[in-house]
């Protein structure tokens, strides 16, 4: 089960634990580590895995890391391909996983709205959106040949509000970055980027300012924009979500770096 540390991953893991309880879920968690996640996310990840007795696999694209591939130096597109897409394929190939769960939802993005719950991948992890298997009722065709795989999205029909409601009802722990607090930020192209560590390349004379911000979605810190907010409790965050005028993926800079962006990334094997 892919574990990205975000709120959707949290819900998916919680559901899996409930489904198998009193046994632990009979599969490991896999985190694709780009080395650019927020520090608070790493802390949350290790705590959740430890508290739930889950076997946590962590994979980094070591070759790209050695080459120093990063979002500021190599551009978001190349960086995402190397540290996320290629890293994910390496991790799946290394352990021969043929079925992998992901927390993606159809309401997030247009090409995701088109995807099956059991989404077939050919050898090389390619997604062909034009020849998806029919998927009627809850009858899922799970048969594949060697080298092929299936990505399963159990939360396909959940909305952002459903996720928050479930977190609220079940008291699921979330990364504190979802709640507003004073944090150091720099404004770039109208987006608020939080300075999470010393790797931030300041422009001459540029200084971070402290603003009360939170995140609606969590990814790699240089590629995830924050929003100014006073919502420092779960209840307040949900209320703001109900009144939101922008979609949650607006803070995801990689969705729009080229037209049909997400679909292209997904065809190449991105989650």
């Amino acid at each position, binding site marked *: 089960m892919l574990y990205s540390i975000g709120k959707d991953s949290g819900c998916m893991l919680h559901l899996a634990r409930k489904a198998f309880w009193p046994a632990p879920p009979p599969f490991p968690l896999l985190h694709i580590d780009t080395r650019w996640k927020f520090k608070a996310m790493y802390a949350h990840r290790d705590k959740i895995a430890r508290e739930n007795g889950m076997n946590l696999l962590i994979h980094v694209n070591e070759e790209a890391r050695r080459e120093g591939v990063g979002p500021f130096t190599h551009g978001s597109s190349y960086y995402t391909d190397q540290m996320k897409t290629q890293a994910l394929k390496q991790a799946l190939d290394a352990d021969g996983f043929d079925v992998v769960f992901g927390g993606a939802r159809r309401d997030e993005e247009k090409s995701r709205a088109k995807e099956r719950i059991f989404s077939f991948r050919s050898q090389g992890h390619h997604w062909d959106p034009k020849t998806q298997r029919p998927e*009627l009722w809850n009858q899922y065709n799970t048969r594949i040949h060697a080298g092929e795989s299936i990505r399963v999205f159990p939360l396909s*029909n959940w909305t952002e509000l459903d996720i928050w409601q479930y977190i609220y009802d079940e008291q699921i722990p979330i990364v504190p970055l979802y709640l507003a607090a004073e944090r150091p930020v720099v404004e770039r192209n109208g987006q608020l980027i939080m300075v999470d560590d010393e790797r931030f390349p300041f422009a001459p004379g540029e200084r971070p300012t402290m603003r009360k911000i939170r995140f609606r979605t969590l990814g790699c810190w240089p590629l995830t924009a924050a929003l100014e907010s006073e919502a420092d409790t779960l209840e307040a965050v949900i209320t703001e979500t109900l009144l939101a005028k922008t979609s949650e993926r607006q803070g995801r800079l990689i969705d729009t770096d080229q037209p049909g962006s997400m679909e292209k990334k997904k065809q190449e094997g991105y989650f």
Partner: protein
Amino acid sequence: MTTASGSRDLPTILNRNAEKGVLRFITCGSVDDGKSTLIGRLLYESTNLFDDQLDALAGESRRYGTQGEALDFALVVDGLEAEREQGITIDVAYRFFATEKRRFIVADTPGHEQYTRNMATGASNADLAVVLVDVRKGIAVQTRRHTRIASMLGIRHLVLAVNKMDLIGYDEARFRSVEAEFSAFAEGLGFLSLQSIPVSGVFGDNITYGSDATPWYSGPALLEYLDTVEPAVETLKGAPFCMPVQYVSRPNPDFRGYCGRLAAGQLRTGSRVKVATSGMTTSIRRVISGFDDVDSAEAGDSITLVLEDDIDVSRGDALVSDDSDAAVSDQFQVRLLWLSRAPMIPARPYILKTGPREVAASVMSLKYVEDVNSGEHIAANTLSMNEFGLATLTTAMPIFFKKYADNRALGSFILIDKSSNETVAAGLFNFSLRRADNIQMQPLEINKNARMILMRQRPRCLWFTGLSGAGKSTIANLLEKRLYAQGNFTYILDGDNIRHGLNRDLGFTEADRAENIRRAAEVAKLMVDAGLIVIVSFISPFRAERDLAREKFSPGDFIEVFIDARLEDCERRDVKGLYAKARSGKLKNFTGIDSPYEAPQSPDVHIDTGLLSPDDAVTAILTALD
């Protein structure tokens, strides 16, 4: 900016959200009738589009749009690059929106005939269908096909959205004529309600609000109607309980639990329970829901059951209430919707999947194909892509099922092709053609074992497969002579000879080839039961049919012998002159030329005729038998 103080009403808001019913509907109909535009308009007007999505829409409307400078709402749902470029919908898109009263999941389905299976994907879980018709074009073949599929899959409420009214000046007479034609067609298809609404997706008439342009129409706007229609609810809770077992949980030697979703009825601790197929009974000790032990559960709940006694239950079995008249069968009347480009082949074994169960299944006979336009029943031997028909289906083992009309989850199945793994058909159980418990075989006292002892040999079926001219008959003859010399009782079933007698009514289509193999396998099985060593020498080009033959025998009784020769060599020898005929087009469907040969992937014996002489081949086979 909202502050934390705004959260006071939150529990109320969330409760209301959770209590709102969900209506799942599809939009369907022919190409270019405006399905995607209509949904885009619905999302726009129910303010379920965010500002950044509207900005992106404005940009894409200029780039790909078909509406000039105006917003092209179809681009909201056509999420694939190929769809935006071609201006069509290829696959079903799921979108979510809510009103004060309800939450909606809408599946926008494609109109092109080649993507009909994607329409069926969307329809299978829907409560209601909005059928769009371009008022200028009227009812098209795809309109009828989609309406029939909706009916077959159990959708009970229809909306006829007569679209593009703006292009005919909102003329009532034209609307009424389409409405009348469609009503006449839909009558008798089992719908509980049909609401016709004149709309314009592009201008938004009668979508969210009533329109001034249609003063002659007094009915509800589309969204008003969707907000109030009462969907037909499956009455699952009153039925005897049934839970297909998805997973057997054994974390330690002291715990054994059966996990699954309760598909019907209610149960509680202490309820008597029975395994549907074996009839073994016990009672429920614990019901676990999430992290808690609970007293009871009802249809729709995902639970883990702990039973009082250790009885044999595995994934795919169904736990049902002790007093339920559990329907178990291995022969059914079913309705099929064919989804694959490769047509259905009678008698070929497919994999039937229903819930967690997978079992080999074959379509034994097709009663009829339903004509899309007229609904007329047409006699046929096969189903092609997008056709639907009524058929008799048998499974290799008895399975638990419900009528689709009573329970969608337990009454539906898919068929999967064994070699491609493609989902080739969607099916609905109508009823059992016989009760499995009535077909117990007549037990015979002189059985295979008794004959084996008398004849002092182990009866077996040696199944030779290979190209025409590979040397099957030559090797089979030599092998039989050697066995005879050893004092064995044998028989050869030769493909050519059988086709002169038992199978003289069969040709060389894929379907006839499948039946040819089925009969040979049945005869071989009887002979093995009679104690003989049977050598079957058939080209038998398809893996699926050879697998079907193997499944008829006890493990170890069926030996697949691959007589492997290169096509060039067979063609050069051409003992019977058949390759020459096939090459000149005088012989159709000839294996290796214009019909495929699927070589065995792991034969029990592999004879490479390039390396072994016929004598050596026989020795190799005899060695493998010991």
